[in-house]
């Protein structure tokens, strides 16, 4: 029999503390979204539960919650899909063809992602304003594609680099052209990688704040993070119940995605970083 070691127990306790740290603010968000009043922690009578805040955000059209949500889903979905398509084309070239300046392209694109958003946003505002695109989907989709491209490219390059070149050679012998190889050979093999990349690009676009704040003006294109940040009550008091209900409702899909595809997200995140 092994001697008793306190180590597994300590690990378990540490893991529980970590779990609490990560989940308590989220739990507080959920609890407040169901509370009749946000000050239940101070009150003697304690917590009174209600579904009223969810009912409000889903039915009161003047709050535009569902508009914000739809804008966010469409804008992030289209941005992520375009970014993944563009990155896949480039990653194919960077891992398969012998061309000069590969490193320059990879690092140039990575460096582009290091610019603070605030240094892009005034110029983007002017351009979109001149085009009359402020408060439209393209005003956000185009910058978002550029914004999530570096990440998408790095992840896809590391996935594509793992696919054996023999597959390409065999396809070439069979008379496939380059675009055919990419479409029929590489993409199916790399499908899990493409999916992880799409997920990450989606989450990054979905969470973006500054561009959305500056380039939209109302519910026609405003995304959910900005909508929630600017959520105010009629008489100055903050409608915490509604804000938290909207937050939970918005976060649930992202949290569900995270729980379902945790392995893929982790793979994607770490491929970008560890290989670099």
């Amino acid at each position, binding site marked *: 029999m092994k001697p008793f070691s306190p180590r597994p127990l300590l690990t378990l306790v540490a893991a529980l503390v970590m779990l609490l740290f*990560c989940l308590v603010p989220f739990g507080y968000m959920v609890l407040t979204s169901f509370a009749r009043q946000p000050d239940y*922690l101070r009150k003697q009578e304690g917590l009174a539960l209600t579904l009223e805040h969810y009912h409000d955000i889903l039915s009161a059209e003047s709050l535009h919650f569902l508009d914000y949500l739809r804008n966010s889903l469409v804008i992030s979905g289209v941005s992520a899909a375009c970014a993944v398509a563009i990155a896949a084309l480039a990653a194919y070239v960077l891992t398969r063809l012998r061309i000069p300046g590969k490193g320059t392209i990879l690092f140039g694109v990575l460096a582009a992602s290091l610019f603070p958003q605030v240094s892009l946003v005034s110029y983007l505002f002017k351009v979109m304003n001149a085009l009359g695109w402020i408060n439209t989907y393209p005003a956000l989709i185009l910058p978002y594609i550029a914004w999530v491209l570096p990440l998408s490219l790095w992840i896809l390059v590391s996935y594509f680099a793992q696919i054996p070149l023999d597959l390409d050679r065999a396809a070439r012998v069979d008379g496939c052209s380059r675009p055919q190889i990419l479409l029929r050979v590489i993409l199916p093999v790399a499908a899990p990688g493409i999916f992880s990349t799409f997920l990450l690009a989606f989450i990054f676009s979905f969470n973006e*704040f*500054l561009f959305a704040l500056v380039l939209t003006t109302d519910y026609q294109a405003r995304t959910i993070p900005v909508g929630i940040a600017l959520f105010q009550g009629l008489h100055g008091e903050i409608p915490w119940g509604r804000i938290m209900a909207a937050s939970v409702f918005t976060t649930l899909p992202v949290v569900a995605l995270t729980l379902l595809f945790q392995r893929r997200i982790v793979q994607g995140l770490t491929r970008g970083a560890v290989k*670099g």
Partner: protein
Amino acid sequence: MPSDREFKTALLFLLPLLLTVLAFIAVPVAGTIYDSFFRDVTFLPRRFLGLENYRSLLADRAFYQALLFTLLFTIASVPLEVVLGLVFALILNRPLPARGLLRAAVLIPWAIPAAVSGRAFELIYNFSYGLANYLVLTLGLSDAPVNWLGSSYGAFASLVIADAWRTTPFVAIILLAGLTAIPGDLYRQATIDGAGTLQQFARVTLPLLKPVLMVALLFRTIDALRVFDVVYVITGGGPGGSTNALSLYGYQYFLSGDFGYGSTISVVLFAVALALSILYVRVSGFGRELA
């Protein structure tokens, strides 16, 4: 040398990437640098100023306050997040029940939009009924409720904590990947050589983790320097401008229609970010093996 055909294919495939990055990142950055040399205010005629905006910046107390806050915020939050992230990664790397679920739970703070979790923290820090003061009073850490967002120290600490909550998972996941890449043989060998847990950590784990640690540090530093949404939502730069981050300060000028001065602030911000990135790359040799 590639054949002409291959070269054309390559160019064609790379074109969308290069055009997008050029049009929506490179050109806007160049435009911002260009604008910083002009008086560019809505409804006023545009006028070339040379370095006038930069001179004004040097005499601008609010700018120094924003620069100081941004640097202090970075210095306080990045080491905290990296150390905490390392602890999380070490925990996640141990044999535990429901490891996948645990990892997913740790990812949740990262997956929530910062503006959204920011509002949750705004409520957590609420003076009269927020969770923070409830915990402080219930656990007896203080006799009176803490004025989290009303004092400059409190607001600073509140922002660092909220930011650490949101970004520690990202650091943890990246470091975890670095940890799993360390061959187990090395630990077995170290155990045979009589190295204790702490020694193993210092002699095996840390040195082998260094490249990944450097990546995490670099990304976090850049991100902390350009912090915007957390500050915008939780303190709005207050109280009294004490938590006005550089990004927020620049944004305030754009909002008031002064694009020239706002651009100048942005240029300084990315100059700082660039200088620190170069320093990291120099010190760590990050990317040397790829170049």
